[in-house]
């Protein structure tokens, strides 16, 4: 489902670690090594953070004193080069001399078009993700909208799945609330990348936010996490849509 709609997905990948006292020296070295591998000419520096940017792929790599991460507009670059990006981040971690990452996370925010109106998607949420609307009338009157957040354990990964029907306005608001989007356009006053993405998703859609994390990870295990989390996100998104549309859910999770 995500791979079928790559241009309606925002991708986040992050590694959190314990900051070190010598971070100022090591951080610049880590960012420099990543820049060489990313071949990213655009970069910027803020307080305790380097940002490397690739405008062609609409991608920003962010290197902070306690967190390294990727932000991507569209799934395509991550689909094609996720292992390379994971390797770059892991290489940067090793430059810091760390042998353990506190947590690593992969998150997607997808605005999936289902060929249905907002009202229809809202109606289908009842009876699939929450009880029938009639049973909730005492709680909220006749329900007209719903947002579901589920926490779980998916194949060894901690998961948070958020599902909500959205109309054009809600999708726009959700998208514009994503932090650091400004790093994905250049030159800032002329680049229409964000507007184009907004125009694409500003319609009645199903918003699916999937956040998968793993704690206390050795740098060597990031490759496995990258593979596992991408597969899991795709399966979860597929299952979410199937459940809403009353289609059989193919995958049964351990």
């Amino acid at each position: 489902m995500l791979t079928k709609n790559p241009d309606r997905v925002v991708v986040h990948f992050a590694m959190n670690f314990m900051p070190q006292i010598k971070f100022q020296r090591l951080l610049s070295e880590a960012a420099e090594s990543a820049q060489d591998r990313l071949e990213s000419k655009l970069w910027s520096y803020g307080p305790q953070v380097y940002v490397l940017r690739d405008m062609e792929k609409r991608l920003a790599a962010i290197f902070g004193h306690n967190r390294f991460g990727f932000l991507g507009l569209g799934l395509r670059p991550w689909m094609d080069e996720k292992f390379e990006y994971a390797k770059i981040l892991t290489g940067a971690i090793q430059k810091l001399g760390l042998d353990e990452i506190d947590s690593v996370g992969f998150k997607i925010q997808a605005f999936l078009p289902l060929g249905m109106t907002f009202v229809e998607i809202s109606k289908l949420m009842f009876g699939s993700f929450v009880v029938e609307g009639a049973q909730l009338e005492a709680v909220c009157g006749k329900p007209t909208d719903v947002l579901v957040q589920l926490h779980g354990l998916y194949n060894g990964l901690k998961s948070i799945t958020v599902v909500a029907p959205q109309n054009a306005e809600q999708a726009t608001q959700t998208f514009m609330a994503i932090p650091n989007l400004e790093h994905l356009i250049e030159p800032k006053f002329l680049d229409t990348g964000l507007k184009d993405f907004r125009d694409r998703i500003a319609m009645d859609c199903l918003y699916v936010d999937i956040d998968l994390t793993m704690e206390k990870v050795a740098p060597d295990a990031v490759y496995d996490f990258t593979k596992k989390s991408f597969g899991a996100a795709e399966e979860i998104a597929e299952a979410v849509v199937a459940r809403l549309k009353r289609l059989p859910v193919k995958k049964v999770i351990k």
Partner: protein
Amino acid sequence: MPVSSPSASNALGSTYAAHEPLSRYLSQGLFDDLGTTTDPYKRASDTALLTILADFAGWRGPSNPIQDVRQNTTAYDAAIRRENMQRMREQFDALARQANRADFAVSVFPLVEYIRHTLNRIADSPKEGNTREILRRIRDSLIDGGWSQYKEQRARSTAMAILKYLSEAEVVTPQDVVKCAGQMRSAEIRFTGIPTFDFDEERDDFDGEKYDEEVSD
């Protein structure tokens, strides 16, 4: 933020706020009356006008604050069909426990009612004609004494297999009508008041989509 707003300008103002040309038209108050009427015909024409206006302004999304007057989308109808078929299947399954009762016909009644309810619910759907065709055949096999056939496990299993397919299929095609008819024929399920059971597209009351007709996605 769903539908039904007292003023189209307000409703459209928020829904289409992101689209500047359209917002501009609306802020001029040119379409203040749109969507405010309770007359269904006027509301339908308002919807059509809004669609043209949105197309003209280059708006890509289908959001429409008075979309409740519109027909359901085919994707939604298909989801409703799958949900109802699943429930119908459970009702057929429950018949097994009643099969030996002398008043078995009474047990079948809610099922027939549910089929009628489902037929009504998808009656206007342009892409569920094949589903309706199959459902009518199942309904016709249950009425006027036909219910006694479903005392047999074989008949129930056949109907449940058909309903299982309908509860999982993305699209129900004319070929599915033929296939289901064949399954029912093999299980020797008879139809009250219908002497033959041929899949005939030329029949006057045929409701399924034709073979060469495009089906929903």
